[in-house]
């Protein structure tokens, strides 16, 4: 069972997550994500320049899995273009849904691979994807992207 793995890996990030858990300076985009069935809420802030995510941070409340997953995501997307960020998100969703299993394809997810086993805990999948959905839904439609 994945729970030990998930919580030990996640743990590190959770402990460190304060690193990304703060408002950023001069954000260009603010995105809200909620998970009504848990009451989890995050606000994701991005500073975009020429289609590149220069800085990111989040605030809000939620479980270890949603917080850690969001924090890991922020580490990954900083310095990436919108297209690259969307690709990361899609890869993450693919991993969670067991649609992408090829290890090589998952490599770009780096630390986020630790959340692979969340698919064994279907009730928690929503937690793991909260930050990623907030990101994708937001930047895919946001006019202030560029």
């Amino acid at each position, binding site marked *: 069972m994945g*729970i030990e793995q998930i919580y030990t890996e996640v743990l590190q990030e959770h402990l460190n997550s304060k690193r990304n858990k703060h408002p950023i300076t001069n954000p260009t985009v603010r995105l809200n994500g909620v998970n009504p*069935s*848990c*009451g*989890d809420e995050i606000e994701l802030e991005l500073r975009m320049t020429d289609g590149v995510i220069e800085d990111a941070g989040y605030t809000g409340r939620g479980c270890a899995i949603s917080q850690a997953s969001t924090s890991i995501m922020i580490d990954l997307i900083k310095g990436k273009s919108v297209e690259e960020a969307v690709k990361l998100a899609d890869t993450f969703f693919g991993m969670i849904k067991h649609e992408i299993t090829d290890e090589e394809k998952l490599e770009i997810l780096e630390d986020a691979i630790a959340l692979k086993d969340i698919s064994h*805990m279907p*009730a*928690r999948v929503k937690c793991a994807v909260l930050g990623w959905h907030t990101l994708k839904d937001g930047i895919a439609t946001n006019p202030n992207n560029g």
Partner: protein
Amino acid sequence: MSNPFRKDFPILDSTFNNKPLVYLDNAATSQKPDSVIKAVEDYYRKQNANPYRGLYQLSVAATDAYEEARSITAEFINAKSSKEIIFTRNSTEALNLIAYSYGRSVLKAGDEIVIPISEHHSNILPWQQLVKEKGAVLSYLYLDKNGYLLEEDIENKITERTKIVSIAHVSNVLGTVYPIEKIIQKAHSVGAVVIVDTAQGIPHYPVDVKQWDVDFLVFSGHKMLAPMGIGVLYGKEELLDNMPPFLTGGEMIEYVYEQEATFAPLPNKFEAGTPNVGGAVGLAEAIRYINQVGYDTIQNIEEELRDHALKELSQIPDVVVYGETKAGRDRCGVISFNVEGVHPHDTSSILDADGIAIRAGHHCAQPLMNYMDVAATCRASFYFYNTIEDIDTFIHSLKKVRRWLGYGN
């Protein structure tokens, strides 16, 4: 395990991840004894037919089984007559039936409906919808920090303007047992009708509608050993008799013409369409089982579990229990708590890895969560088939939660 009832519940022998199931989500739904599962099976093997309309013996058998279930239910809550028992899907449907049928026909602009802030969504939303349609007012009774209703709210908010007071017998979050008789007296003194939602009460405490003089009562079979899909609405005959039907269709009519129809007398008036006879048979068997165990035994077992759990929880640092934390009569074995710094979902997942089933979330009581200023809680809830060992396993696992999340211990 010295509990003599466990063996009657086949699911309690399950294992998850090689850990035996410790089922502590009884407030969500109870497990079913063998006798209930078998009674339903037997019905389908020997008596199944559409009741009422068939004149052949199988249909008569199905009708008898269904009406016997109704009589057993009437007797169980001491109703005056089995006409006062309407079978529904669950408590939620029963509450909606009252809101649509009674509520829409009596409520006027400016009238008030009073409910505690701790109600389950099923006892909130139908009233929100109704007051919106009627221009009426939904007013709340608030709680003290131990989960008891504020005396002054009972005194001041139930007034001449109040037409309906709807209240849970037992809170599904805090386990508080509310002072039903006092509320009923107060409400009747101002001419309001009272609905008691005993979904969380009747699995643990006997209910006597005559003694309470309650106007309407609702509960769900699935929380008291019966299958899902069967629930009960009790209403005083005079009230039900004067209410318009809710769902219309087969079985609830007398004469049907192209443009109008007359309705059957109680109880059929409120039971449109083919009823869930199998579910009713299961409910009847559940009632027999509860009567056989006896509410005294149920309460003795549950009080021991509750007291043990409250004591053990009080000794874990970083665990906060909501509502009444002392053992006592007016506190059911439904315990909401949180581990400091840990989201309830994480607590639940970690316990789940040890085979322990508890609930984490808002427990269909978001207004109470807001009022208590918490996003969510964990909830462990017991039934008479639980054991002290179950509680110990739960406590043992709970003690590890903060360590899993990297807090030193």
